[in-house]
Protein backbone atom coordinates (compact mmCIF):
# COMPACT_ATOMS: atom_id res chain seq x y z
CA UNK A 1 0.00 0.00 0.00
CA UNK A 2 1.23 3.45 -0.93
CA UNK A 3 1.39 6.07 1.80
CA UNK A 4 1.73 9.82 2.18
CA UNK A 5 4.02 10.36 5.15
CA UNK A 6 5.43 13.44 6.83
CA UNK A 7 9.00 12.39 7.52
CA UNK A 8 11.31 14.25 9.89
CA UNK A 9 14.74 15.10 8.57
CA UNK A 10 17.26 13.37 10.81
CA UNK A 11 20.31 14.45 8.91
CA UNK A 12 21.19 16.28 5.71
CA UNK A 13 24.81 15.59 4.84
CA UNK A 14 26.54 17.28 1.94
CA UNK A 15 28.60 14.62 0.13
CA UNK A 16 30.29 16.79 -2.50
CA UNK A 17 29.64 20.00 -4.42
CA UNK A 18 26.34 18.81 -5.96
CA UNK A 19 25.23 15.74 -4.03
CA UNK A 20 23.73 15.33 -0.58
CA UNK A 21 22.40 12.53 1.59
CA UNK A 22 19.00 13.00 3.21
CA UNK A 23 18.25 10.74 6.16
CA UNK A 24 14.53 10.81 6.96
CA UNK A 25 12.70 9.29 9.90
CA UNK A 26 9.18 7.99 10.36
CA UNK A 27 7.61 5.44 12.69
CA UNK A 28 5.24 4.55 9.88
CA UNK A 29 7.79 3.37 7.27
CA UNK A 30 6.31 0.91 4.82
CA UNK A 31 8.28 -2.01 3.39
CA UNK A 32 10.44 -0.85 0.49
CA UNK A 33 12.04 -3.15 -2.06
CA UNK A 34 15.28 -2.43 -3.91
CA UNK A 35 14.70 -0.32 -7.00
CA UNK A 36 11.56 1.39 -5.74
CA UNK A 37 11.43 5.17 -5.51
CA UNK A 38 9.68 7.91 -3.56
CA UNK A 39 8.06 11.18 -4.62
CA UNK A 40 9.14 14.09 -2.44
CA UNK A 41 7.15 17.30 -2.02
CA UNK A 42 9.17 20.47 -2.32
CA UNK A 43 7.98 23.34 -0.11
CA UNK A 44 8.67 27.06 -0.45
CA UNK A 45 9.65 26.87 -4.10
CA UNK A 46 6.99 28.55 -6.27
CA UNK A 47 8.63 27.37 -9.49
CA UNK A 48 8.47 23.74 -8.35
CA UNK A 49 4.92 22.50 -8.78
CA UNK A 50 5.44 18.75 -8.89
CA UNK A 51 7.00 16.31 -6.47
CA UNK A 52 10.53 15.13 -7.14
CA UNK A 53 10.96 11.39 -7.82
CA UNK A 54 14.04 10.07 -6.02
CA UNK A 55 15.27 6.50 -5.86
CA UNK A 56 15.71 4.83 -2.51
CA UNK A 57 19.39 4.59 -1.55
CA UNK A 58 19.01 2.63 1.66
CA UNK A 59 16.43 1.70 4.28
CA UNK A 60 16.75 0.93 7.97
CA UNK A 61 13.46 -0.74 8.79
CA UNK A 62 14.23 -1.19 12.49
CA UNK A 63 15.01 2.49 13.05
CA UNK A 64 12.44 3.76 10.53
CA UNK A 65 15.05 5.51 8.42
CA UNK A 66 14.93 6.28 4.72
CA UNK A 67 18.15 7.29 2.95
CA UNK A 68 17.96 9.41 -0.19
CA UNK A 69 21.05 10.16 -2.24
CA UNK A 70 20.20 13.33 -4.14
CA UNK A 71 22.01 15.22 -6.86
CA UNK A 72 21.14 18.88 -7.32
CA UNK A 73 19.87 19.24 -10.89
CA UNK A 74 17.38 22.10 -10.61
CA UNK A 75 15.43 24.35 -8.27
CA UNK A 76 13.50 21.49 -6.65
CA UNK A 77 16.51 19.45 -5.60
CA UNK A 78 18.40 22.65 -4.69
CA UNK A 79 15.55 23.44 -2.36
CA UNK A 80 15.65 19.97 -0.79
CA UNK A 81 19.40 20.39 -0.24
CA UNK A 82 18.67 23.17 2.27
CA UNK A 83 16.53 20.97 4.56
CA UNK A 84 17.76 20.89 8.14
CA UNK A 85 17.51 18.29 10.89
CA UNK A 86 14.04 18.51 12.42
CA UNK A 87 12.36 19.83 9.25
CA UNK A 88 9.33 17.96 7.93
CA UNK A 89 9.18 16.63 4.40
CA UNK A 90 6.15 14.98 2.80
CA UNK A 91 6.93 11.80 0.90
CA UNK A 92 4.73 9.58 -1.26
CA UNK A 93 5.98 5.98 -1.11
CA UNK A 94 6.80 3.25 -1.96
CA UNK A 95 6.45 3.69 -5.72
CA UNK A 96 7.15 1.53 -8.74
CA UNK A 97 8.28 -2.04 -9.18
CA UNK A 98 11.64 -3.38 -8.02
CA UNK A 99 14.72 -5.23 -9.20
CA UNK A 100 14.21 -9.00 -9.32
CA UNK A 101 16.50 -10.74 -6.90
CA UNK A 102 17.63 -14.14 -8.17
CA UNK A 103 17.94 -17.09 -5.81
CA UNK A 104 21.42 -17.87 -7.00
CA UNK A 105 23.93 -16.82 -9.62
CA UNK A 106 26.52 -14.10 -9.97
CA UNK A 107 25.11 -10.55 -10.04
CA UNK A 108 26.80 -7.43 -11.40
CA UNK A 109 25.30 -4.13 -10.25
CA UNK A 110 26.33 -1.19 -12.40
CA UNK A 111 25.70 2.39 -11.31
CA UNK A 112 26.67 5.53 -13.18
CA UNK A 113 26.66 9.01 -11.65
CA UNK A 114 23.81 9.35 -9.16
CA UNK A 115 22.40 6.13 -10.66
CA UNK A 116 24.54 4.37 -8.07
CA UNK A 117 21.92 5.34 -5.47
CA UNK A 118 19.63 2.26 -5.59
CA UNK A 119 22.58 -0.15 -5.89
CA UNK A 120 23.35 0.18 -2.18
CA UNK A 121 19.92 -1.04 -1.09
CA UNK A 122 20.02 -3.76 -3.76
CA UNK A 123 23.45 -5.06 -2.75
CA UNK A 124 22.46 -5.01 0.93
CA UNK A 125 19.35 -7.11 0.30
CA UNK A 126 21.27 -9.44 -2.04
CA UNK A 127 23.95 -10.01 0.59
CA UNK A 128 21.32 -10.72 3.25
CA UNK A 129 19.94 -13.44 0.95
CA UNK A 130 23.29 -15.16 0.58
CA UNK A 131 24.33 -13.69 -2.77
CA UNK A 132 27.74 -12.10 -3.33
CA UNK A 133 27.02 -9.07 -5.50
CA UNK A 134 29.69 -7.24 -7.47
CA UNK A 135 29.18 -3.49 -7.82
CA UNK A 136 30.75 -1.46 -10.62
CA UNK A 137 30.59 2.29 -10.08
CA UNK A 138 31.30 4.68 -12.92
CA UNK A 139 31.88 8.40 -12.33
CA UNK A 140 33.65 11.32 -14.01
CA UNK A 141 36.40 11.51 -11.43
CA UNK A 142 37.52 10.13 -8.03
CA UNK A 143 35.89 13.02 -6.17
CA UNK A 144 32.48 11.87 -7.45
CA UNK A 145 32.82 8.46 -5.80
CA UNK A 146 30.66 8.78 -2.71
CA UNK A 147 29.61 6.49 0.14
CA UNK A 148 32.41 4.06 -0.80
CA UNK A 149 32.55 2.26 2.61
CA UNK A 150 28.81 1.56 2.53
CA UNK A 151 28.98 -0.20 -0.84
CA UNK A 152 32.11 -2.11 0.19
CA UNK A 153 30.25 -3.43 3.24
CA UNK A 154 27.86 -5.45 1.08
CA UNK A 155 29.67 -6.03 -2.20
CA UNK A 156 32.97 -6.35 -4.00
CA UNK A 157 33.27 -2.93 -5.57
CA UNK A 158 35.12 -1.83 -8.72
CA UNK A 159 35.49 1.69 -10.04
CA UNK A 160 35.86 3.39 -13.39
CA UNK A 161 36.45 7.09 -13.83
CA UNK A 162 36.44 9.03 -17.07
CA UNK A 163 39.68 10.83 -16.11
CA UNK A 164 41.39 7.75 -14.68
CA UNK A 165 41.76 9.28 -11.20
CA UNK A 166 40.36 6.12 -9.56
CA UNK A 167 40.03 2.51 -10.73
CA UNK A 168 40.18 1.89 -14.45
CA UNK A 169 40.01 4.79 -16.88
CA UNK A 170 37.03 4.95 -19.23
CA UNK A 171 33.37 3.98 -19.13
CA UNK A 172 31.79 1.13 -17.18
CA UNK A 173 31.53 -0.95 -20.34
CA UNK A 174 35.35 -0.75 -20.74
CA UNK A 175 36.04 -2.28 -17.31
CA UNK A 176 37.97 -5.57 -17.18
CA UNK A 177 35.51 -7.08 -14.68
CA UNK A 178 33.13 -7.52 -17.61
CA UNK A 179 35.44 -10.25 -18.89
CA UNK A 180 34.31 -12.40 -15.97
CA UNK A 181 31.15 -14.44 -16.14
CA UNK A 182 27.94 -12.96 -14.72
CA UNK A 183 24.41 -14.37 -14.74
CA UNK A 184 22.60 -11.09 -14.09
CA UNK A 185 23.26 -7.41 -14.63
CA UNK A 186 21.33 -4.63 -12.86
CA UNK A 187 21.98 -1.13 -14.08
CA UNK A 188 21.01 2.44 -13.26
CA UNK A 189 22.54 5.60 -14.68
CA UNK A 190 22.44 7.98 -17.61
CA UNK A 191 20.55 6.55 -20.60
CA UNK A 192 23.58 6.33 -22.97
CA UNK A 193 25.40 4.30 -20.29
CA UNK A 194 22.44 2.00 -19.73
CA UNK A 195 22.11 1.46 -23.46
CA UNK A 196 25.81 0.56 -23.70
CA UNK A 197 25.39 -1.89 -20.81
CA UNK A 198 22.24 -3.31 -22.44
CA UNK A 199 24.14 -3.77 -25.71
CA UNK A 200 26.86 -5.69 -23.87
CA UNK A 201 24.37 -7.80 -21.89
CA UNK A 202 22.37 -8.54 -25.04
CA UNK A 203 25.47 -9.74 -26.89
CA UNK A 204 26.58 -11.91 -23.97
CA UNK A 205 23.00 -13.15 -23.41
CA UNK A 206 23.08 -12.00 -19.79
CA UNK A 207 19.75 -11.29 -18.11
CA UNK A 208 19.73 -7.52 -17.63
CA UNK A 209 17.45 -5.07 -15.84
CA UNK A 210 17.74 -1.30 -16.11
CA UNK A 211 16.09 1.42 -14.03
CA UNK A 212 14.68 4.34 -16.03
CA UNK A 213 14.10 7.88 -14.79
CA UNK A 214 11.65 9.47 -17.22
CA UNK A 215 10.19 12.81 -16.22
CA UNK A 216 6.90 12.22 -14.44
CA UNK A 217 4.09 14.12 -12.77
CA UNK A 218 2.07 11.88 -10.44
CA UNK A 219 4.20 8.80 -9.71
CA UNK A 220 1.11 6.58 -9.32
CA UNK A 221 0.05 5.79 -12.88
CA UNK A 222 -2.66 8.44 -13.20
CA UNK A 223 -1.21 11.00 -15.61
CA UNK A 224 0.49 8.71 -18.17
CA UNK A 225 3.27 11.28 -18.70
CA UNK A 226 6.31 9.10 -17.98
CA UNK A 227 5.77 6.32 -20.52
CA UNK A 228 8.49 4.35 -22.23
CA UNK A 229 7.95 2.38 -25.40
CA UNK A 230 7.96 -1.36 -24.83
CA UNK A 231 7.17 -4.40 -26.93
CA UNK A 232 3.68 -4.28 -25.40
CA UNK A 233 3.20 -0.56 -26.14
CA UNK A 234 3.61 2.46 -23.88
CA UNK A 235 4.12 1.59 -20.23
CA UNK A 236 4.28 3.93 -17.24
CA UNK A 237 7.77 4.11 -15.79
CA UNK A 238 6.25 5.05 -12.41
CA UNK A 239 4.07 1.95 -11.96
CA UNK A 240 5.17 -0.67 -14.50
CA UNK A 241 8.81 0.43 -14.02
CA UNK A 242 11.14 2.03 -13.15
CA UNK A 243 12.86 -1.34 -13.56
CA UNK A 244 12.55 -3.00 -16.97
CA UNK A 245 14.15 -6.08 -18.46
CA UNK A 246 16.07 -4.91 -21.54
CA UNK A 247 14.28 -7.55 -23.63
CA UNK A 248 10.97 -5.77 -23.01
CA UNK A 249 12.17 -2.33 -24.14
CA UNK A 250 12.27 -1.13 -27.71
CA UNK A 251 15.72 0.39 -27.40
CA UNK A 252 17.67 0.59 -30.65
CA UNK A 253 20.89 -0.95 -29.38
Amino acid at each position, binding site marked *: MKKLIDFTVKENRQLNHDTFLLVLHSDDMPEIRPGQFVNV*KVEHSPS*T*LLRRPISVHDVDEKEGLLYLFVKIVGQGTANLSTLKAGDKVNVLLPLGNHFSIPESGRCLLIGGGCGVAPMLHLSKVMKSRGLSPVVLIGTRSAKDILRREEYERYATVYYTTEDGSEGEKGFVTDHSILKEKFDYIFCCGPEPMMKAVARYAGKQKINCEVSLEN*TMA*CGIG*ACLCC*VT*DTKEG*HKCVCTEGPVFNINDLKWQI
Partner: protein
Amino acid sequence: MADLKIDINGLALKNPVLTASGTFGYGTEFEDFIDLSRLGGFIVKGTTLHHREGNPYPRMAETPAGMLNAVGLQNKGVDYFIEHIYPKIKDVKTNILVNVSGSTVSDYMATAEKINELENIPGIELNISCPNVKEGGMAFGTSCASAAEVVKAVRQVYKKHLMVKLSPNVTNIQEIALAVEAAGADSVSLINTLMGMAINAKTRKPVLSTITGGLSGPCVKPIALRMVWQVSKVVKIPVVGLGGITCATDAIEFLLAGASAVQIGTANFIDPAITVKVIDGINSYLEENGFNSVHEIIGLI
Protein backbone atom coordinates in the same frame (compact mmCIF):
# COMPACT_ATOMS: atom_id res chain seq x y z
CA MET B 1 -22.27 20.29 8.76
CA ALA B 2 -23.47 22.45 5.87
CA ASP B 3 -25.53 20.94 3.07
CA LEU B 4 -23.06 20.20 0.29
CA LYS B 5 -25.53 18.37 -1.96
CA ILE B 6 -25.98 19.71 -5.44
CA ASP B 7 -28.05 18.57 -8.38
CA ILE B 8 -26.61 19.44 -11.75
CA ASN B 9 -29.47 19.00 -14.17
CA GLY B 10 -30.48 15.60 -12.84
CA LEU B 11 -27.05 14.41 -11.79
CA ALA B 12 -27.20 14.26 -7.99
CA LEU B 13 -23.86 14.95 -6.32
CA LYS B 14 -23.28 14.51 -2.57
CA ASN B 15 -20.88 17.45 -2.80
CA PRO B 16 -19.65 19.68 -5.62
CA VAL B 17 -16.19 18.11 -5.92
CA LEU B 18 -15.35 15.96 -8.95
CA THR B 19 -11.99 15.04 -10.42
CA ALA B 20 -10.80 16.06 -13.85
CA SER B 21 -10.36 13.47 -16.55
CA GLY B 22 -6.77 12.46 -17.22
CA THR B 23 -5.62 13.38 -13.73
CA PHE B 24 -7.31 10.64 -11.76
CA GLY B 25 -6.72 7.51 -13.83
CA TYR B 26 -9.66 5.18 -13.22
CA GLY B 27 -10.01 6.15 -9.58
CA THR B 28 -8.39 2.96 -8.31
CA GLU B 29 -4.95 4.61 -8.41
CA PHE B 30 -6.13 6.83 -5.52
CA GLU B 31 -7.73 4.22 -3.27
CA ASP B 32 -4.69 4.03 -1.01
CA PHE B 33 -5.15 7.71 -0.18
CA ILE B 34 -8.87 8.49 -0.12
CA ASP B 35 -12.26 6.87 0.18
CA LEU B 36 -13.57 7.33 -3.37
CA SER B 37 -17.15 7.31 -2.14
CA ARG B 38 -16.57 10.65 -0.42
CA LEU B 39 -16.28 12.40 -3.79
CA GLY B 40 -19.14 14.09 -5.56
CA GLY B 41 -17.90 12.04 -8.46
CA PHE B 42 -14.91 11.24 -10.60
CA ILE B 43 -14.35 11.42 -14.32
CA VAL B 44 -12.22 8.67 -15.76
CA LYS B 45 -9.52 8.97 -18.35
CA GLY B 46 -10.43 10.03 -21.91
CA THR B 47 -11.89 7.02 -23.69
CA THR B 48 -12.04 6.48 -27.44
CA LEU B 49 -13.67 3.88 -29.66
CA HIS B 50 -10.38 2.16 -30.40
CA HIS B 51 -7.13 1.63 -28.54
CA ARG B 52 -4.75 4.63 -28.71
CA GLU B 53 -1.05 4.53 -27.86
CA GLY B 54 -0.91 8.28 -27.31
CA ASN B 55 2.01 10.51 -28.20
CA PRO B 56 5.69 9.58 -27.88
CA TYR B 57 7.72 10.49 -24.78
CA PRO B 58 8.49 13.21 -23.63
CA ARG B 59 4.93 14.13 -22.78
CA MET B 60 5.35 16.48 -19.85
CA ALA B 61 7.11 19.72 -19.06
CA GLU B 62 6.94 21.46 -15.71
CA THR B 63 6.44 25.22 -16.02
CA PRO B 64 6.20 27.99 -13.41
CA ALA B 65 3.12 27.12 -11.33
CA GLY B 66 1.95 24.65 -13.94
CA MET B 67 2.72 21.83 -16.31
CA LEU B 68 2.29 21.06 -19.97
CA ASN B 69 1.15 17.62 -21.04
CA ALA B 70 0.93 15.95 -24.40
CA VAL B 71 -0.35 12.50 -23.45
CA GLY B 72 -2.63 12.34 -26.51
CA LEU B 73 -5.52 10.27 -25.12
CA GLN B 74 -3.61 7.06 -24.48
CA ASN B 75 -6.25 4.47 -23.59
CA LYS B 76 -7.18 0.89 -24.45
CA GLY B 77 -10.52 1.73 -26.06
CA VAL B 78 -14.11 1.64 -24.86
CA ASP B 79 -14.54 -2.16 -25.10
CA TYR B 80 -11.53 -2.72 -22.85
CA PHE B 81 -12.97 -0.18 -20.41
CA ILE B 82 -16.33 -1.96 -20.33
CA GLU B 83 -14.83 -5.41 -19.95
CA HIS B 84 -11.89 -4.83 -17.62
CA ILE B 85 -12.22 -1.51 -15.80
CA TYR B 86 -15.93 -0.91 -15.32
CA PRO B 87 -16.42 -4.10 -13.24
CA LYS B 88 -13.72 -2.93 -10.81
CA ILE B 89 -15.21 0.51 -10.18
CA LYS B 90 -18.94 0.16 -10.79
CA ASP B 91 -19.83 -0.42 -7.14
CA VAL B 92 -18.07 2.67 -5.79
CA LYS B 93 -20.80 4.77 -4.22
CA THR B 94 -20.26 7.93 -6.19
CA ASN B 95 -20.94 9.31 -9.67
CA ILE B 96 -18.53 7.90 -12.20
CA LEU B 97 -18.48 9.75 -15.50
CA VAL B 98 -16.57 8.62 -18.57
CA ASN B 99 -14.76 11.22 -20.62
CA VAL B 100 -15.48 10.40 -24.25
CA SER B 101 -13.29 11.52 -27.12
CA GLY B 102 -13.02 10.72 -30.81
CA SER B 103 -11.64 11.66 -34.21
CA THR B 104 -14.98 11.60 -36.05
CA VAL B 105 -18.59 12.25 -35.12
CA SER B 106 -19.43 8.60 -35.68
CA ASP B 107 -16.61 7.55 -33.30
CA TYR B 108 -18.02 9.80 -30.59
CA MET B 109 -21.49 8.36 -31.18
CA ALA B 110 -20.35 4.73 -31.14
CA THR B 111 -18.41 5.22 -27.89
CA ALA B 112 -21.24 7.13 -26.19
CA GLU B 113 -23.74 4.47 -27.24
CA LYS B 114 -21.68 1.74 -25.60
CA ILE B 115 -21.28 3.75 -22.39
CA ASN B 116 -25.02 4.40 -22.37
CA GLU B 117 -25.56 0.69 -21.63
CA LEU B 118 -23.52 0.79 -18.40
CA GLU B 119 -25.96 0.94 -15.52
CA ASN B 120 -23.63 2.56 -13.00
CA ILE B 121 -22.28 5.30 -15.26
CA PRO B 122 -24.79 8.16 -14.88
CA GLY B 123 -23.14 10.47 -17.38
CA ILE B 124 -20.41 11.21 -19.85
CA GLU B 125 -18.18 14.18 -20.32
CA LEU B 126 -17.85 14.83 -24.02
CA ASN B 127 -14.31 15.95 -24.74
CA ILE B 128 -14.35 18.35 -27.67
CA SER B 129 -11.32 20.16 -26.37
CA CYS B 130 -8.24 17.90 -26.23
CA PRO B 131 -5.35 19.94 -27.67
CA ASN B 132 -3.03 16.94 -28.02
CA VAL B 133 -4.48 14.91 -30.86
CA LYS B 134 -4.10 15.56 -34.56
CA GLU B 135 -7.67 14.73 -35.53
CA GLY B 136 -10.84 15.47 -33.65
CA GLY B 137 -10.59 16.65 -30.06
CA MET B 138 -10.10 20.38 -29.97
CA ALA B 139 -10.95 20.72 -33.66
CA PHE B 140 -14.59 20.04 -32.72
CA GLY B 141 -14.60 22.45 -29.83
CA THR B 142 -13.24 25.55 -31.51
CA SER B 143 -16.13 26.36 -33.83
CA CYS B 144 -19.79 26.69 -32.90
CA ALA B 145 -20.96 24.65 -35.89
CA SER B 146 -18.72 21.61 -35.30
CA ALA B 147 -19.25 21.71 -31.53
CA ALA B 148 -23.00 21.73 -32.03
CA GLU B 149 -22.80 18.99 -34.66
CA VAL B 150 -21.01 16.50 -32.41
CA VAL B 151 -23.14 17.31 -29.36
CA LYS B 152 -26.35 16.94 -31.37
CA ALA B 153 -25.22 13.60 -32.78
CA VAL B 154 -24.20 12.20 -29.39
CA ARG B 155 -27.42 13.52 -27.83
CA GLN B 156 -29.39 11.27 -30.19
CA VAL B 157 -27.74 8.11 -28.88
CA TYR B 158 -26.84 9.06 -25.31
CA LYS B 159 -29.75 9.18 -22.88
CA LYS B 160 -28.13 10.09 -19.55
CA HIS B 161 -26.31 13.19 -18.33
CA LEU B 162 -24.30 14.79 -21.13
CA MET B 163 -21.60 17.14 -19.89
CA VAL B 164 -19.56 18.86 -22.59
CA LYS B 165 -15.98 19.91 -21.85
CA LEU B 166 -15.07 23.19 -23.47
CA SER B 167 -11.77 24.41 -24.81
CA PRO B 168 -10.34 27.75 -23.67
CA ASN B 169 -8.44 28.00 -26.95
CA VAL B 170 -11.23 29.99 -28.60
CA THR B 171 -12.04 33.61 -29.32
CA ASN B 172 -15.42 33.61 -27.58
CA ILE B 173 -16.19 30.79 -25.18
CA GLN B 174 -19.70 32.11 -24.49
CA GLU B 175 -20.72 31.43 -28.10
CA ILE B 176 -19.43 27.85 -28.00
CA ALA B 177 -21.21 27.26 -24.67
CA LEU B 178 -24.48 28.57 -26.08
CA ALA B 179 -24.07 26.40 -29.17
CA VAL B 180 -23.61 23.18 -27.18
CA GLU B 181 -26.45 24.12 -24.85
CA ALA B 182 -28.75 24.53 -27.84
CA ALA B 183 -27.51 21.21 -29.22
CA GLY B 184 -28.65 19.37 -26.11
CA ALA B 185 -25.85 19.43 -23.51
CA ASP B 186 -27.02 18.95 -19.91
CA SER B 187 -24.05 20.82 -18.50
CA VAL B 188 -20.73 22.27 -19.58
CA SER B 189 -17.34 21.83 -17.91
CA LEU B 190 -14.53 24.29 -18.43
CA ILE B 191 -11.72 24.80 -18.96
CA ASN B 192 -9.70 22.09 -20.67
CA THR B 193 -5.96 22.86 -20.95
CA LEU B 194 -4.59 25.92 -22.68
CA MET B 195 -2.33 25.24 -25.61
CA GLY B 196 1.25 26.07 -24.70
CA MET B 197 4.86 25.25 -25.45
CA ALA B 198 8.18 24.73 -23.70
CA ILE B 199 11.65 25.06 -25.21
CA ASN B 200 14.95 23.82 -23.82
CA ALA B 201 17.46 26.60 -24.56
CA LYS B 202 20.38 24.26 -23.79
CA THR B 203 19.48 21.73 -26.47
CA ARG B 204 17.67 24.33 -28.62
CA LYS B 205 14.77 21.90 -29.01
CA PRO B 206 11.14 21.77 -27.88
CA VAL B 207 10.68 19.84 -24.62
CA LEU B 208 7.58 17.93 -25.75
CA SER B 209 7.63 15.35 -28.55
CA THR B 210 4.58 17.08 -30.01
CA ILE B 211 6.15 20.57 -29.66
CA THR B 212 2.94 22.00 -28.19
CA GLY B 213 0.91 20.68 -25.26
CA GLY B 214 -1.86 21.52 -22.83
CA LEU B 215 -1.10 23.84 -19.91
CA SER B 216 -2.71 23.15 -16.52
CA GLY B 217 -2.11 23.94 -12.87
CA PRO B 218 -2.38 27.07 -10.71
CA CYS B 219 -1.10 29.31 -13.52
CA VAL B 220 -4.32 28.86 -15.52
CA LYS B 221 -6.72 29.58 -12.65
CA PRO B 222 -7.40 33.28 -13.38
CA ILE B 223 -8.26 32.46 -16.99
CA ALA B 224 -10.48 29.56 -15.95
CA LEU B 225 -12.30 31.70 -13.38
CA ARG B 226 -12.93 34.41 -15.95
CA MET B 227 -14.31 31.93 -18.47
CA VAL B 228 -16.53 30.17 -15.90
CA TRP B 229 -17.93 33.56 -14.87
CA GLN B 230 -18.53 34.57 -18.50
CA VAL B 231 -20.20 31.29 -19.45
CA SER B 232 -22.38 31.05 -16.34
CA LYS B 233 -23.79 34.49 -17.17
CA VAL B 234 -25.17 33.33 -20.51
CA VAL B 235 -26.15 29.65 -20.28
CA LYS B 236 -29.09 28.17 -18.37
CA ILE B 237 -27.49 24.73 -17.88
CA PRO B 238 -25.12 24.17 -14.96
CA VAL B 239 -21.44 25.03 -15.34
CA VAL B 240 -18.72 22.82 -13.86
CA GLY B 241 -15.55 24.80 -13.22
CA LEU B 242 -11.99 23.60 -13.39
CA GLY B 243 -8.51 24.94 -13.96
CA GLY B 244 -5.79 25.20 -11.33
CA ILE B 245 -7.79 24.36 -8.21
CA THR B 246 -5.35 23.34 -5.45
CA CYS B 247 -7.33 24.09 -2.27
CA ALA B 248 -10.82 24.72 -0.91
CA THR B 249 -10.48 28.48 -1.37
CA ASP B 250 -9.81 28.01 -5.09
CA ALA B 251 -12.88 25.79 -5.37
CA ILE B 252 -15.03 28.36 -3.52
CA GLU B 253 -13.87 31.04 -5.95
CA PHE B 254 -15.19 28.96 -8.84
CA LEU B 255 -18.53 28.46 -7.07
CA LEU B 256 -18.76 32.21 -6.48
CA ALA B 257 -18.01 32.78 -10.16
CA GLY B 258 -21.02 30.69 -11.08
CA ALA B 259 -19.89 27.05 -11.16
CA SER B 260 -22.35 24.56 -9.65
CA ALA B 261 -19.56 22.04 -9.16
CA VAL B 262 -15.79 21.89 -9.64
CA GLN B 263 -13.22 19.44 -10.89
CA ILE B 264 -9.78 19.00 -9.39
CA GLY B 265 -7.06 18.09 -11.85
CA THR B 266 -3.33 18.69 -11.69
CA ALA B 267 -3.43 19.06 -7.88
CA ASN B 268 -4.13 15.29 -7.66
CA PHE B 269 -0.57 14.74 -8.86
CA ILE B 270 0.94 16.67 -5.99
CA ASP B 271 -1.41 15.57 -3.23
CA PRO B 272 -3.42 12.44 -4.05
CA ALA B 273 -5.64 13.19 -1.03
CA ILE B 274 -6.41 16.79 -2.06
CA THR B 275 -10.03 16.10 -3.06
CA VAL B 276 -11.25 15.22 0.42
CA LYS B 277 -9.37 18.19 1.87
CA VAL B 278 -11.21 20.46 -0.56
CA ILE B 279 -14.58 18.90 0.37
CA ASP B 280 -13.89 19.43 4.08
CA GLY B 281 -12.62 22.94 3.39
CA ILE B 282 -15.77 23.95 1.51
CA ASN B 283 -17.85 22.72 4.43
CA SER B 284 -15.77 24.72 6.94
CA TYR B 285 -16.05 27.84 4.80
CA LEU B 286 -19.83 27.54 4.62
CA GLU B 287 -20.13 26.97 8.38
CA GLU B 288 -17.75 29.77 9.30
CA ASN B 289 -19.56 32.23 7.05
CA GLY B 290 -23.08 31.30 8.12
CA PHE B 291 -24.27 29.53 4.99
CA ASN B 292 -26.52 26.50 5.36
CA SER B 293 -26.05 25.18 1.86
CA VAL B 294 -23.52 25.34 -0.92
CA HIS B 295 -26.32 26.65 -3.18
CA GLU B 296 -26.17 29.95 -1.36
CA ILE B 297 -22.73 30.87 -2.69
CA ILE B 298 -23.07 29.71 -6.29
CA GLY B 299 -22.88 32.63 -8.69
CA LEU B 300 -22.74 35.35 -6.04
CA ILE B 301 -20.50 37.34 -8.37
